C-alpha cells in the first residue's frame, strides 16, 4: 500500500493551495454564471430592495386589469367577440401584462433623480432590471394561464395548446421589446411597438382571417413548443446582455 502511494505524483502543498484558490476565485466569480449571479443578488438584496416599488406595481396591475376588462366589456357591443377565434384573442393579448410591467417598471430612466446614485452601486439598475424583467415574464405567464383557465369555463379550449400559443406570443414580443430596450431608451418607441403588435394582429386576423388562422392553427404543437423554448432562450440572452453588457461602452 505504501509503495503504490508513493508512485502517484502528488502536488506540493503550496501548489494545492494555489490551485484551490484559483478554483475558488473562478468559481466565486459571480459573472461566470447568469443564474448564480441572479441567485446571489436575490440573496443579498431580497425582494423588498429589488421590487422597491412593489405597491406601485400592484396598483398599476389592478388598475389596468379593471380598465382593460371595462374596455373589453364596453367594446363587446361593437365587436362581436363570438365571431373571434379564441386562439386569436389569446395570441394577440398574451403580451399585454408583460408590456405593462416593461413599460412602467423597467426602472431604467435617466431622468430619475436617483439614477446616478443607484447606477454606481455594485448592483446597479442594469442588474436590477434584468432580475425584474425575468420575474415579470414569469408572472405574466402565470397571469396568462389564469386567463386561459377563465376562458375555458366559457369555451372549449385545449389548455396545453392555448398555453403554448400564449407563451410563444409572450416571449416573441418580450424578445423584441427587450432588444429595443437595450438600445433605445425611449418610451415612445416601446409604446409604438405595443400598439403595432396589437393593431397588427387585430388587423391581420380581420382582413385575412383565413390565412391568419391557418398560420396560427396549422402550426403543430411541437413547433409552438420549440418557438417558446427558442424565444425564451433568446430572451435570456438579452437579459444576460443587460446583466453583463459590454454594449455599455457604446451608450453614453
Amino acid at each position, binding site marked *: 500500500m505504501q509503495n503504490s502511494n508513493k508512485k502517484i505524483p502528488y502536488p506540493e502543498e503550496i501548489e494545492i493551495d494555489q490551485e484551490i484558490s484559483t478554483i475558488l476565485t473562478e468559481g466565486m466569480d459571480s459573472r461566470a454564471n447568469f443564474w448564480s449571479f441572479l441567485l446571489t443578488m436575490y440573496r*443579498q438584496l431580497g425582494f423588498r430592495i429589488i421590487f422597491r416599488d412593489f405597491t406601485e406595481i400592484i396598483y398599476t396591475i389592478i388598475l389596468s386589469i379593471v380598465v382593460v376588462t371595462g374596455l373589453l366589456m364596453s367594446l363587446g357591443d361593437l365587436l362581436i367577440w363570438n365571431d373571434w377565434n379564441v386562439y386569436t384573442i389569446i395570441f394577440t393579448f398574451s403580451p399585454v401584462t408583460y408590456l405593462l410591467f416593461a413599460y412602467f417598471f423597467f426602472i431604467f430612466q435617466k431622468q430619475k433623480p436617483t439614477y446616478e*446614485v*443607484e447606477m454606481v452601486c455594485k448592483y446597479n439598475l442594469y442588474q436590477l432590471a434584468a432580475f425584474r424583467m425575468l420575474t415579470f415574464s414569469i408572472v405574466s405567464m402565470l397571469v396568462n394561464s389564469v386567463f386561459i383557465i377563465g376562458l375555458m369555463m366559457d369555451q372549449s379550449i385545449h389548455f396545453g395548446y392555448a398555453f403554448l400559443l400564449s407563451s410563444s406570443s409572450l416571449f416573441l414580443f418580450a424578445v423584441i421589446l427587450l432588444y429595443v430596450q437595450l438600445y433605445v431608451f425611449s418610451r415612445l418607441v416601446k409604446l409604438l411597438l405595443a400598439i403595432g403588435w396589437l393593431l397588427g394582429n387585430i388587423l391581420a386576423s380581420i382582413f385575412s382571417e383565413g390565412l391568419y388562422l391557418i398560420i396560427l392553427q396549422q402550426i403543430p404543437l411541437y413547433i409552438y413548443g420549440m418557438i417558446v423554448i427558442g424565444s425564451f432562450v433568446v430572451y435570456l440572452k438579452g437579459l444576460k446582455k443587460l446583466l453583463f453588457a459590454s454594449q455599455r461602452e457604446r451608450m453614453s
Partner: protein
Amino acid sequence: MLVIENVSKQYGNFQALNSIQLEFQNGIYGLLAPNGAGKTTLIKMIATLMFPTKGEILYNGTNIVALDDKYRDVLGYLPQHFGYYKNYSPEKYLFYLAALKGLDKSTAKQRINELLTLVGLEDVTRKKMKKFSGGMIQRVGIAQEMLNDPKVLILDEPTAGLDPKERARFRKILTSLARDRIIILSTHIVSDVESIANQIIMIKEKKVLYQDTVAHISNQLKGMLFETEVSLAEEDQFRDNYQIIGERQEQEKLIFRFVAEQRLEEAWQEVIPTLEDVFLHVYEDDQTLAGSMK
C-alpha cells in the same frame, strides 16, 4: 492606483475634454476649474456613468469598464445633484443603498449609525428627507458615498449649498478619510481644496493645465504678483496695462493686486501668490467660460 489614459470626450460635435492624462495615488485631489470647464464630464467618466470617446481609465491596471461591478464595489460617488426619495428617511435610504452596494444587514446597520453621526445627522435619522435643508441633504450624500468604505471616492462640487461652518466640518471629515483611499473632489471654490488637497488639478481649454501641489502651483506667479496704490485719476490706464487680480478701496486710493512680468516701480510691493491668485490669473481670459453653453 487610478490612471486616466489619454481620455477625450465629445458630445456630438462639441469637444468637452481633450487628451486628459492623469494619475491618482491615495490622497486628496482637488479638481479646480470654473463653470463649464468639464469637471462633471471627467468625474462622470471616472464613475462609469459615461464613457470616453477616446482613451481609457484604468484602476490598478485594468479598464474600469471591464472591472464592472468589481470597480463599483470600491467606488463612492456624490453627484453634483444628489437625488433621493423624498418620502424616505436618511436611514431608510442608506439601508437601501447599502443593500445595492452589497453590504449585509448587520454591517450596514453599524456603518449607517457611524456615518450619520459623522455627518451630524444622528438626531434626524428617521425624519423624512423632504423636510431637510439643502445642507442636510448634502450631508446624507456624503454619508451614502462612504457606505462601502470606497477606495476611490469622487465628489462633484460637494460643498455647494453648505454654509461656512459646514464647509469647515466637511473638510475635516474628508481629511480624516484620506489616509487609505483616492479622493477626487471638484470645485470652483479655491478655499475648499487649498488647505486639504495633496494635489490640485486645473483644466483649461479642455486640457490639463496643472497637476501639482498647492505650493508649486502658487509658485507659478512668484515674482510676478504685486500690490500698489493707484490714484483714481490713474485708475483706467492702470487697468489697461496690467492684469488686475484683486482690488480694494482705502479712502481716496485704490489698492490693486496685479500681475506684471517684473517689478517696474519702487512703490510696487511684491506679494506672495496664493492658489486663488493663480486661479484668477489662469482663467482671466478663459474662453470656455464665454463659449460655454450654460
